């Protein structure tokens, strides 16, 4: 196989330049593409601040021309409301992974709810759009994938594809919370898992971490995205140290990569292809939340840079 290389196309969307619904003013995290004939709709999570001063993540989208440089418009209304009192997605949806299914678009949400001894828990919900992804209606107040015996917390970041009639979900699960030092709040560690389903609603977890650690057991892995390229499945994700990762660029998110020919065994190889930050630029300190998709014969990678995407997302394209 010829060597795959990313060609960076720079930042393509800055949320602070637009008026977004739900009083969201910054952050365009975890971009996820839905390709139409004439344009590409890119969902992202943006943030409002509630009465207590804490963030609430909301889903919004931007429609872009297929050159992926020109913005057509941003969503003017709520794409999916947050969950009801006490529900898993009451305090945020971040991210939402979209996949076409028949005439509908399925949105797999990562819902956030606040806890007391630790900051949050998450679970994965399903919402369905019958208007080409302008709005989504959840199938129920609860999640389709949540914590289980050996995946005790923080089930989230579901990425779904239907392959040979089977729904596959790559997602993350928390292995636990830990106070890494006396003067910090608890931090969590999460790993990438895999589940299958025949209907997209009832899932069977594979039940183990599928991507090897590079940084040891305190590596957190997030937001898997999978794309088939020339008969091989490639997964991109992000990974970091589990603590002191927000401001210390040496411990913050980087883009990882693994490949598989059978969707069972994955070989991690972060170097081929490798996506590198550009010194002094928007992604110099951090690279995170990748999303791979194909458009008009090209493979693209959307991703966030510094500060977890506070100032938007950028793009790279694969060269072989």
């Amino acid at each position, binding site marked *: 196989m010829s060597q795959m290389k990313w060609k960076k196309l720079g930042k393509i969307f800055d949320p602070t330049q637009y008026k977004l619904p739900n009083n969201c003013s910054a952050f365009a995290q975890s971009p996820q593409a839905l390709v139409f004939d004439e344009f590409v709709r890119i969902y992202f999570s943006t943030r409002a601040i509630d009465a207590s001063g804490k963030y609430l993540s909301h889903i919004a989208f931007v429609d872009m021309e297929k050159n992926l440089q020109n913005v057509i418009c941003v969503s003017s209304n709520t794409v999916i409301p947050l969950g009801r009192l*006490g529900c*898993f997605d*009451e305090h945020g949806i971040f991210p939402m992974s979209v996949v076409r299914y028949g005439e509908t678009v399925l949105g797999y949400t990562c819902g956030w709810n606040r*806890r007391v001894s630790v900051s949050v828990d998450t679970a994965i919900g399903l919402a369905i759009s019958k208007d080409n992804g302008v709005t989504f209606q959840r199938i*129920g107040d*609860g999640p389709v994938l949540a*914590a289980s015996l050996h995946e*005790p917390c923080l089930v989230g970041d579901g990425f779904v594809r239907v392959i040979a009639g089977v729904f596959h979900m790559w997602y993350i699960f928390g292995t*636990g919370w830990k106070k890494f030092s006396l003067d910090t709040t608890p931090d969590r560690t999460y790993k990438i898992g895999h589940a299958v389903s025949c209907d997209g609603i009832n899932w069977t977890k594979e039940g183990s971490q599928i991507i090897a650690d590079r940084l040891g057991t305190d590596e957190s892995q997030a937001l898997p995205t999978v794309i088939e390229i020339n008969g091989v499945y490639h997964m991109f994700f992000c990974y970091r140290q589990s603590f002191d990762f927000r401001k210390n660029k040496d411990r913050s998110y980087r883009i990882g990569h693994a490949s598989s020919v059978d969707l069972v065994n994955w070989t991690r190889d972060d170097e081929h292809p490798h996506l590198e930050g550009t010194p002094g630029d928007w992604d110099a300190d951090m690279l995170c939340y990748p999303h791979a998709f194909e458009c008009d014969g090209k493979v693209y990678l959307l991703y966030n840079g510094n500060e977890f995407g506070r100032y938007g997302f950028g793009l790279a394209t694969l060269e072989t």
Partner: protein
Amino acid sequence: MFRWEKLGKIFTPQEVDGRIWLKEFAQAPATLIFDDFVRVYFSCRPFADNAKQYVSYSAYVDLDRANLFNVLSVSKDPILKLGGLGEFDEFGTYPVSVIRHCSEVRAYYAGWTRCESVPFNVAIGVAISHDSGRTFSKLGSGPVLSYSPDEPFVLSGPKIRRFDNLWYLWYISGRKWITVNGRSEPIYKIRMASSSDGILWAKLNKDIIESRIEEDEAQASPDVFYSNGKYHMFFCYRYSRHYRSKKNGYRIGYACSTNLTDWVRDDTKVGIDLSDQGWDCEMLSYPHVFELDGKTYLAYLGNEVGRYGFGLAVLDGKLE
């Protein structure tokens, strides 16, 4: 109508010395019968902390089989540890339901966590004992039964049974949180699931007991007992609001079924109601039916949902 003869309160947690974790409450009695004694599991609490918050533990009391009013001993320690930081059972293991299986005893329990917008959330865990139910180890650090699209939160009150080589779990699932005088109060309904191994569960996904006193009636403690060709369920129910009172507090209800999934509610048959005075003159809750030496007993809680212990009634006649 069944004719229950009340025998009085048989266990008072305030009378137990030397256990800082057992100061108040003896809730949700569940029996395991031995040759010489009856082990009754219950859930209890230390005094509330400075923020008036409780944690709950589960323990047992051994009663003399020949005279159930003769307390032989109380467990030295809780049967389960609270969960670790951020785990679903970090702040409570209540209630618990036990069953013998081969040489083990299995416990299904509700684990409690604390939330920001509502006071708590609950999911169901499982643990195994290899010493006749004295100590249990959890099968995992996460729940064995968790949230799903139409069971969004508060999965609690498990009652584990085996019929015809299948495992059955009756439990409750939260329907919604309502706000009464600034306090969030959960509404929950009785549900069931079945399993071939007690680990992987298939939910029935429906409310199996119709609501009688109001649409938002809350139902709990679905205790199923097979007798005389029928499945009998004793449970408890309350009004949605102001239920910490005699007027709107818990009462015991009854339903029966011939196939385990279709239940006919008939509270007029239950045959047990408030006493005019004494420990059970305001509330009746958490019923548990067991047979012992040719007699059918009902263990239950009285006022203040078991703050001062549980009592017993004996059936005059048969459950049919």
